[in-house]
């Protein structure tokens, strides 16, 4: 690492810390909201195939929409700022979570469900005690994919004034300030890698518990 | 004539501390089927794969027609050796015809000759080219895929074939049929074949000579007959199994024994005629043949209770027939499934050859011992 970049990290540590917190904050909030909505939609889709045939292709199409375009489309509704960025990130996190919830539930061995029914468990109990626990590793894998993905996309929400580490990159472009850009890039990538490893570890410990 | 000779062949996989093949010495005679048999991991596949240099041996020599296989360019070596593996390895993106043509294309045969040859090969293994050439492997049953695998290996008429559990992935009935068909082909082709299996019944049925392996070593190399009567040690006798008389049934083919012939009637014959025939037969059965002489069914006392003026109205359609290459072991299983105390044998064209009864099987085993 060259000297000026190092200096940048040292002298701007307060700014960097603030931006990291903003970045992590918006990502965590978005993922939390997406888990609530996504798991619900995924569960509903697993019960109502008509719903599944609408929701799954729709989330799939949303994924192909460029992030800057999606954020742009919300501007007339939500204006610029945190809310716009948050909603954009929630939408991107939905697909992996909805799809993995749906697949996780659908791939449970039919025999297990039948056994639960045979023992007289109500559908609600089956969902809470059998389906969700068994689908959990798959759902968690979806959460991981979503988190890693939107950690990167969150760099772009700065363009609509939602803050985060993307600020460093946009400001760096505006001032042709290479160290600032590199610092932003490194921090965003590190956050992405950390999220990936952290959630992978969580998945692993969960699978181990279950087996 | 010795076709393939293994001389002090050793194989040690890199990073492994034991020998996968430990000093193999063996001679395979021209035109014979040499079976490699033994428990899982004993080195059968490895021995086979060293022959066409899919694996390179660590030391020793493998001679083919007296030439060390290391002195032959691997591509050339392999083009002259048919190869069928357990997973069959059909190419899923190619049609059946293209699969069978693989080696011919590699050998740069002209297109029209390839086409002709492919049709010939598919017919040979009993697949109608009209129906199957343009299909892909995914559109075939397990048994049909095995046939394509064999057709593909035979296409360029290689003098040597390597077959690793070629009939491993199908149900026992299909397997028996494929084995019989293959033996019939081999009778004409007279190829030198190295055939891996871990099914001792298959080994006894198919092999001219059987090589029993264990821990990478050759334990006994003998004809099926000798293997049954003179197992070299306890390991071989336990592999062959306790019930050796039953195993011996694998050695005898239906074509090897004399058969009793029940009376025959034609489809168009009257009921009175068949009543007479059934009454006069010691097994209480009459065989029904069509106008080309093929066995189509049987009439027994139960069938006679049915209403109808002619044989064709009352006979029971034939099923579970045995062919000339079926072993007495196969025949016995069919008989037990059939529940009749006898099984009906037909020849290549499907014409009746007679009935094999339990007594026939007993006396054949006694003569053979």
């Amino acid at each position: 690492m060259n000297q000026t970049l190092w200096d940048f990290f040292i002298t701007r540590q307060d700014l960097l810390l603030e931006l990291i917190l903003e970045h992590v904050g918006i990502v965590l909030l978005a993922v939390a909201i997406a888990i609530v909505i996504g798991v619900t939609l995924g569960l509903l889709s697993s019960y109502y195939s008509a719903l599944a045939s609408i929701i799954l292709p729709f989330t799939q199409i949303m994924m192909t929409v460029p992030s800057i375009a999606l954020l742009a489309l919300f501007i007339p509704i939500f204006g610029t700022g945190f809310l716009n960025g948050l909603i954009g990130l929630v939408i991107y996190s939905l697909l992996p979570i909805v799809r993995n919830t749906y697949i996780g539930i659908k791939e449970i061995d039919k025999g297990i469900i039948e056994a639960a029914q045979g023992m007289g468990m109500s559908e609600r109990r089956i969902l809470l005690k059998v389906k969700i626990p068994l689908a959990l590793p798959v759902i968690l894998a979806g959460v991981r994919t979503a988190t890693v993905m939107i950690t990167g996309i969150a760099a772009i929400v700065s363009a609509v004034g939602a803050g985060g580490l993307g600020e460093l990159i946009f400001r760096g472009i505006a001032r042709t300030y290479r160290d600032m850009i590199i610092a932003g890039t490194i921090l965003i990538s590190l956050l992405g890698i950390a999220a990936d490893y952290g959630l992978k570890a969580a998945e692993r410990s969960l699978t181990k518990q279950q087996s | 004539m010795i076709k393939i000779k293994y001389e002090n062949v050793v194989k040690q996989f890199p990073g492994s501390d034991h020998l996968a093949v430990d000093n193999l010495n063996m001679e395979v005679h021209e035109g014979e089927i040499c079976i490699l048999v033994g428990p899982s991991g004993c080195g059968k596949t490895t021995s086979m794969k060293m022959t066409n240099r899919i694996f390179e041996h660590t030391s020793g020599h493998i001679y083919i027609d007296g030439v060390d296989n290391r002195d032959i360019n691997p591509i050339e070596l392999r083009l002259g050796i048919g190869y069928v593996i357990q997973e069959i390895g059909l190419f899923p993106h190619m049609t059946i015809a293209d699969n069978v043509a693989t080696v011919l294309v590699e050998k740069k045969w002209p297109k029209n000759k390839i086409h002709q040859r492919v049709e010939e090969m598919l017919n040979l293994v009993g697949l109608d080219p009209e129906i199957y050439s343009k299909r892909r492997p995914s559109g075939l049953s397990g048994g049909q895929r095995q046939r394509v695998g064999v057709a593909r290996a035979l296409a360029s008429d290689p003098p040597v074939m390597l077959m690793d559990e070629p009939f491993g992935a199908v149900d026992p009935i299909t397997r028996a049929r494929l084995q019989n068909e293959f033996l019939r082909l081999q009778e004409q082709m007279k190829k030198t074949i190295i055939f891996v299996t871990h099914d001792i019944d298959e080994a006894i049925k198919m092999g001219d000579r059987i090589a029993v392996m264990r821990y990478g070593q050759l334990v006994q190399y003998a004809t099926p007959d000798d293997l049954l009567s003179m197992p070299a040690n306890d390991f071989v006798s336990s592999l062959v199994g306790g019930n050796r008389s039953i195993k011996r049934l694998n050695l005898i083919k239906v074509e090897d024994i004399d058969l009793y012939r029940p009376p025959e009637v034609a489809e168009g014959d009257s009921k009175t005629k068949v009543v007479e025939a059934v009454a006069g037969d010691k097994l209480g059965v009459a065989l029904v043949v069509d106008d080309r002489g093929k066995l189509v069914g049987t009439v027994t006392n139960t069938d006679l209770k049915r209403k109808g003026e002619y044989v064709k109205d009352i006979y029971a359609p034939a099923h579970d027939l045995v062919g000339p290459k079926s072993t007495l072991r196969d025949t016995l299983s069919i008989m037990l499934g059939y529940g009749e105390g006898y099984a009906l044998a037909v020849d290549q064209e499907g014409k009746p050859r007679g009935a094999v009864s339990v007594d026939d099987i007993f006396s054949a085993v006694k003569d053979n011992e």
Partner: protein
Amino acid sequence: MNRRNLIWIIVSFLLSVATIFYFVNYPGGKMAARLLNFETITKAYQQHILMVFVASAAAIIVSVSLGILITRPFFSKWASIVDNIVNIAQTIPSLAILALFFTYLGRGFSTAIFALWLYALLPILRNTSAGIQNISPGIIESARGMGMSNLHILTRIELPLALPVIMGGIRTSVVITVGAAALASFIGAGGLGDLIVTGLSVSRNTLVVAGGILSALLAIFLDQVLDLIEDSLRIR
């Protein structure tokens, strides 16, 4: 032929045309009208598509060759290293790559193409190597056992079998590149992103929305076209 793909292709095309006509007729003010006219929009499309096309084409050539190379037995040790590099590189946002190249190569179209190309390499490389590695060993061994040369094994067995997977990588890569190209406007490379970026800086919602809709529809259109191709290559 997949009906759903076709419907999306037609719908996204028609919607794009409708969007262009709407915003040209109702640009929402004089300032926005300077960008919302047929000429400027056509030019933005040209730049955008050219960026995507050049970057993707170059990425396909390089990634497929590289993918073939690292799956040769000689390089087998490299395959997992390359996999790891690709995984880590994918956590870098496309915006960051554009920004970094901008500091070295300056503003403009060619900088953007270079950055997009580099970013587009990853999914294609990963899918090429995965597509070839996932072919069942029995198939390759049969080919070898029958005396096929290494070249023929590659061209007649490995590549045709990996093609649908490679095509999937190309599709992912193109979709990402369309999105990244919309960001290239921040480093002065033009494209449909110009509408969004200008709209944001002068606070004209019509510009922002027009740019958003058109680039979204372009991504959907290309995604569906490539999905259709991928589907037709799949081995049944």
